[in-house]
């Protein structure tokens, strides 16, 4: 029996859902705009902004830069973050809590404050506009996400399995490789995905440590937005949105299959 208050609640939630989805709903049609303008609704239909993304060196190089940096960050941050997650979850409760709070700090430090600090250090050490510089900064920003994801897996992991394996004669590395890692793999993989996205989408620090020779995709998007009304940004946004959706849906389907078998 849908009472009056239920109907009001339903309508309200519809409005909130529209608010949440509004940017996505606007960007996708804008990417097919026939004119070089960001006025809504778009006029006509064309693929020219997608063509522009794939043919303009500005866009393709910044895209490959971001891809390279994010892939390295995903590997490095996942290894370092997973190790840290083990350290945290196996420490005494007090030490573990303190360590965790420390390792999560990058999430709450205001982006600009961090960015000027890193910029100052990089100016002195000639790391501005280098892949190493980007990887270092993004790894630091990604560690908390890996830590949280892996720790969640470790919390439900039954440590008696490790005891059992080593009492049967397995060495510590063998135990990790054949027992622990396979069981916490979903957490490690989602940590890697988070690390990749954190780096790929990072803009504030990137704006400071970028150089004309090394621009990442968010920097290119930002400068395009501030320069002129170019629907190429909408095309890039739509492509990234599609890619992310596919990866996440594939991950969910894989997870479901794992559960069934």
């Amino acid at each position, binding site marked *: 029996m849908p009472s009056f208050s239920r109907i009001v609640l339903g309508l*309200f*939630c519809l409005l*909130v859902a529209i*608010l*949440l*989805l*509004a*940017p*996505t709903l*606007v*960007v996708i049609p804008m990417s097919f705009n026939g004119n070089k303008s960001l*006025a*809504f*609704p778009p006029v006509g239909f064309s693929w020219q902004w997608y063509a522009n993304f794939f043919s303009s060196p500005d866009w393709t190089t910044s895209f490959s830069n971001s891809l390279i940096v994010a892939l390295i960050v995903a590997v490095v941050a996942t*290894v*370092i973050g997973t*190790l*840290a997650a083990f*350290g945290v979850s*196996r420490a005494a409760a007090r*030490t573990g809590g303190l*360590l965790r709070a*420390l*390792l999560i*700090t*990058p999430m*709450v*430090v*205001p982006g*600009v*404050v*961090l*960015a*000027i*600090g*890193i910029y*100052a*250090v990089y100016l002195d050490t000639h790391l501005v506009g280098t892949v190493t510089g980007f990887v*270092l900064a993004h*790894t*630091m920003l990604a*560690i908390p996400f890996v830590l949280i994801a892996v720790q969640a897996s470790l919390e*439900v992991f039954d*440590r008696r399995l*490790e*005891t059992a394996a*080593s*009492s049967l004669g397995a060495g510590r590395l063998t135990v*990790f490789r054949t027992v622990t890692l396979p069981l916490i793999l979903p957490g490690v993989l989602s940590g890697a995905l988070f690390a990749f996205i954190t780096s790929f*989408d990072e*803009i*504030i620090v990137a704006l400071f440590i970028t150089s004309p020779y090394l621009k990442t995709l*968010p920097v290119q*998007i930002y400068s395009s*937005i*501030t320069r002129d009304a170019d629907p190429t940004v909408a095309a890039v*946004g739509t492509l990234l*949105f599609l890619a*992310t959706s596919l990866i*996440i849906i594939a991950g969910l389907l894989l997870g479901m299959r794992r559960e069934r078998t």
Partner: protein
Amino acid sequence: MTATPDDGAPNAAATDLAQSPFLSRFRPRGPVWLATPALFVLLLVLAYPLGIVLWRSFSDPAIGIDNYVWFFQSAVNRAVLQRTFVVAAWVTLACLICAYPYAYAMTIVGRNMRLALILCVLVPFWLSGVVRTLAWVILLQDSGVINSMLRGIGLPPVKLIRTLPGVVIGMTQVLLPFMILPIYSVMKGIDTRLLPAARSLGAQPWKAFLQIYVPLSLPGVYAGAIIVFILSLGFYITPALLGGPRSILLSSLVQNQVLSLLNWGRGGAMGVVLLVATFLLLAIAAPLMRQKHTASRREV
């Protein structure tokens, strides 16, 4: 937490067994040092840079607190600092108003509807952050979606882009998931039979909701509000692109001092003020959150 209450006892027994001297010989030790590489990265690209910012704020151009005196004496700076807090408060309030009923709806609908509602919360994350801000430019601009809709129903257009309300709307959309998810995760654990129980004892439905349900959901509200408020304080991209000269927030002022005026001392002092405000808030709020959390668990 996936552990159910009834498996607590056997688990405890097993832990006792695992801690026996015989078995502990086989158990891989708990090495805290595994966190060393992560701590090293944090030291290198977090602690050291922040230390430099702090040092320069007290030493550039001369040793002393000149930069802080300058910051707090300038009326413009004080206005920006105040505005940054006011915007954070508005965003937190707007998020709370949107998130509370939404999260509540998530707990009472069927499985498929709940999946759809969760999807609406997660889909915004799939759109790149900078692109999302561009979308808000498209929505809020004078020839934008909101103004064409207003014109469609015969209302006069409103100026939204480069105004404070525009910034608040954009930030609210970006931060809304950070409010919905903590509230939902607490509401999920509230025993729904409490409401019919209160009503059967004679309470009005609204009174039962306000006196029983709302207090139990407060830990989620606190957690969400603190996350949203703190993230708002440090927001940079959204205010920079949606705001105008009269809606500058502290982050933009820091960037301007360092990149345009090359004044590291003053920029650093502003940054330190922002940093200290953030951590003070965290320090005040964290214990509050934890206490309320355990209290509500005990009551349920």
